[in-house]
């Protein structure tokens, strides 16, 4: 079963995303800030996609993306941003860092599930 990591300092958001994606057939892992998210990606090679907020304590989402995607072993790991931020300059920064998409909260459950399925199915197969 494919595994999604949700990184958000709001427990309610993590719970909501988890509920939506479990119904779509995924396993969920959770982290409450960017540092925890980075640690989980480093320690769990079974994560198929990361969903990540921006404004979090300890380490924000953009910094987490930059650190995760800075490692060669995470080259094909899709990271989808889920945030209240709609500023295009932040979106450009996330894209430059290696994120593959951006959703502005509040999210539509069906669209979130479709987007996650699409991104995982589109992920390059590594040898």
């Amino acid at each position, binding site marked *: 079963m494919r595994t999604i990591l949700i990184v958000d300092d709001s427990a*309610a958001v993590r719970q*909501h995303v988890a509920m939506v994606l479990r119904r779509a057939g995924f396993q969920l892992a959770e982290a409450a800030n960017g540092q925890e998210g980075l640690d989980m990606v480093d320690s769990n090679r079974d994560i198929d996609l990361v969903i990540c907020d921006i*404004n979090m304590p300890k380490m924000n989402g953009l910094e987490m993306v930059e650190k995760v995607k800075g490692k060669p072993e995470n080259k094909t790991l899709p990271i989808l941003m889920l945030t*209240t931020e*709609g500023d295009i300059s932040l979106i450009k920064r996330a894209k430059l860092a290696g994120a593959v998409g951006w959703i502005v909260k*509040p999210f539509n459950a069906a669209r979130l599930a479709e987007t996650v399925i699409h991104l995982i199915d589109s992920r390059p197969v590594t040898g």
Partner: protein
Amino acid sequence: MSLNELNPHDLLNDLYVAACRALLEAYGLTVNVREHGGVVDSRVKVNYISVLSANGGGVNLSSMLKIDRDLVIRMHPLNGGDPIAQPDLEDWCMELNNQLVGRLKNKLIGYGAVVLIGLPLLLTGTDVNSIASPHSEVHQYSVESADGQITLTIATLVDPGVHLEEPDASLHEENVMDEGMVSLF
């Protein structure tokens, strides 16, 4: 002040109220918003209070969201399932304020103002009131819905040199992604 300049405090208040209406509509609520607190409900009710600030480019604002417990439950994404624990309700109060100020921030971009949002705080206690800088302009709104009440307090402090112009629609479209939108790179 030029013809296109807006009173920044009035603008922030108007955008704040509009952001609140839009946020609650997104969660399926029809609300009535009144300034200066509106009708005071004398019943003792449990409520949750979140404070969140945003600052940048000479614009400083603070949003205090005080929300009835029943309304938090109604709006919680897991409502209808197992009972929601108090820490989760408190967390959702903070997230609602986060989404509210986020909407306000996104609207401000079109007016040429970019603010950075902090992290929401939760306040607990009885008879909690907002504390704002004596130089801030403070407005309070009562938001009434069938499921409960929200009291919103916005405190704004804008540097004298800041001028906010009427928004250019193309500027907004070029610089902002709206709520609910999905973009794949």
